[in-house]
């Protein structure tokens, strides 16, 4: 695999990724509910976007009109979004411990009314790409050059609306719209190949007229290279990122005999083991 990042940068991103994984596990176990495994698969994707020099944003000015947008279409990965926003400086890291608690803006699924850095209220799957397309078209109307990154789950692309948005993005050639599929191979009740097989995923996007890349979604160099290519593409761009659900704590999930572990926090003891793995 080609190296895109300097050794220092890679080490820095790895360290951030580890901290974010710890936040995800600690916050969901403390909350007693949430979707840690669905959050863990997309850590490197989000870390590259926010800390790898891909996205421009201002934590002190969340509504900055020229900011790049990150829309978490798979809203159940909210613990990942919150951990990334906290590490980026939007709010103190300590607030992550208020996840899902009444009064906290860190709701079970992202709510843009409660947390200004959240671009779209999500949690009903399939809708983020259309919303991202709206942001991308607004950039064109206003003559701004920001980009819109939309993170989707691989189960989520069962939803027909995703493909409505994919077709419309081609029509308007919104090259500032970049989708990332967190292809971890699982959805709520089982493997995506069994629940509703959408393969070949990359081929589907290609026939919808998108610029398509398939990469290892945990390889920081591959992610950096993919985003560099996507931002230069003339067409709307999708990165199909092969990932592992529960990445980083696979051995703990194996012990729990649940490699999907969808929508379940780690029990206290397992969480301690997981945090030790990530220390």
């Amino acid at each position, binding site marked *: 695999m080609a190296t895109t990042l300097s050794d220092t940068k890679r080490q820095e991103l790895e360290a951030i990724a580890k901290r974010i994984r710890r936040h995800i596990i600690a916050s969901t176990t403390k909350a007693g509910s949430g979707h840690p495994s669905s959050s863990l698969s997309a850590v490197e994707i989000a870390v590259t976007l926010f800390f790898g020099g891909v996205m421009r944003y201002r934590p002190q000015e969340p509504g900055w*009109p020229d900011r790049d947008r990150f829309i978490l279409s798979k809203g159940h990965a909210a613990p990942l979004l919150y951990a990334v926003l906290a590490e980026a400086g939007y709010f103190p890291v300590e607030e992550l411990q208020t996840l899902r608690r009444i009064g906290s803006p860190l709701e079970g699924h992202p*709510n*843009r*009314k409660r947390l200004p850095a959240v*671009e*779209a*209220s*999500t*949690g*009903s799957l*399939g*809708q*983020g*790409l*259309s*919303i*991202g*397309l*709206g*942001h*991308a*078209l*607004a*950039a064109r*109307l*206003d003559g701004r050059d920001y980009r819109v990154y939309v993170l989707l789950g691989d189960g989520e692309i069962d939803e*027909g*609306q995703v493909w*409505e*948005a994919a*077709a*419309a993005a081609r*029509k*308007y050639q919104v090259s500032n719209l970049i989708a990332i599929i967190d292809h971890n191979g699982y959805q709520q009740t089982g493997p995506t190949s069994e629940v509703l097989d959408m393969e070949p995923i990359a081929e589907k996007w290609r026939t919808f007229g998108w610029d398509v890349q398939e990469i290892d979604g945990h390889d920081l160099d591959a992610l950096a290279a993919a985003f560099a290519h996507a931002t230069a593409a003339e067409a709307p761009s999708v990165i199909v990122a092969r990932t592992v659900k529960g990445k980083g704590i696979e051995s703990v999930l194996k012990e729990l005999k649940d490699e999907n572990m969808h929508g379940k926090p780690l029990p206290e003891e397992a969480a301690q083991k997981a945090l030790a793995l990530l220390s």
Partner: protein
Amino acid sequence: MKIGARIGLSLGKATRDAFGLALAELGREYPDIVVIDGDVHNSTRTEYFAREFPDRFFNVGIAESNMVGIASGLAACGKRPVVASFAAFILCNAFDQLRMGVAFPELPVKVVGSHAGISIGEDGPSQMGIEDVALACALGGFAVVVPADEPSTRAATRAMIEHPGPVYLRVGRPKVPVVYTDGCEFQIGRANELRDGTDVTLIANGLMVAAALEAAYLLEQEDISARVVDMHTVKPIDVAAIQAAAEETGGIVVCEEHLHYGGLGAAVAQTVAETSPCRMAFVNLGDRYAESGTPDELLEAYGLTAEAIVAAARRVLE
């Protein structure tokens, strides 16, 4: 159209035409209006806007869910997006997107449903939006507006564009009788009393306003004095106008081109129950779907006539 002819009301433009023409005019005044179409701009009449502002018009194909999602993103970026399709399709097909992308995040998206009611005629029940008001009212924070005729639809379109929150505007296919004059007063949430009366109040919206005026004329022949109120805004409902009607006339008939549950009748009845209980009757489509036919035949067959309103008023007065 037969409704209103007996009392000399002349036919004006269809409310969808009034909306489309007004929207194009407003486009000149408001450069932030952006229109999203589901390939029905020649039906909803957003074609007038499209012709004048092609760069601010997006026909995204027959994909209502995507239309609403795009509008949500545009609104989040400070635009004033209008999504227009058939009432049945935009509300029934994209209800989740209206909930998640517009109502819940409180974004000022303007939703327009055309071809509402059975008065679309021959295209039949699959095309008739007759549960749209109930669905729109169910969305938290939405204003729901059902104008009666051409002049009030023009005014309602401006009120919708200038309203700070999300709005559902319901318009129809056929030419309808004119009950207002140009430049009429129109405020979202403020009902218009079109005729004073003391014995009973006929509260209506949309096409049924003309039918209620006709019914008031018929009741006058029997020495019954009927007040007629155009309740063009179903949400937020005009509580004061309803309370006054209940207290001053003692009985209310609610008339709408919509199913029985969840529409104007329900909104008025809730208000009456909370403020000043009185006798009530309802003239609407009941709990069933219609069929193909001419608009006049359907309105007659499904009981949306001045005679049906008169009969309901008599029941209230018994």
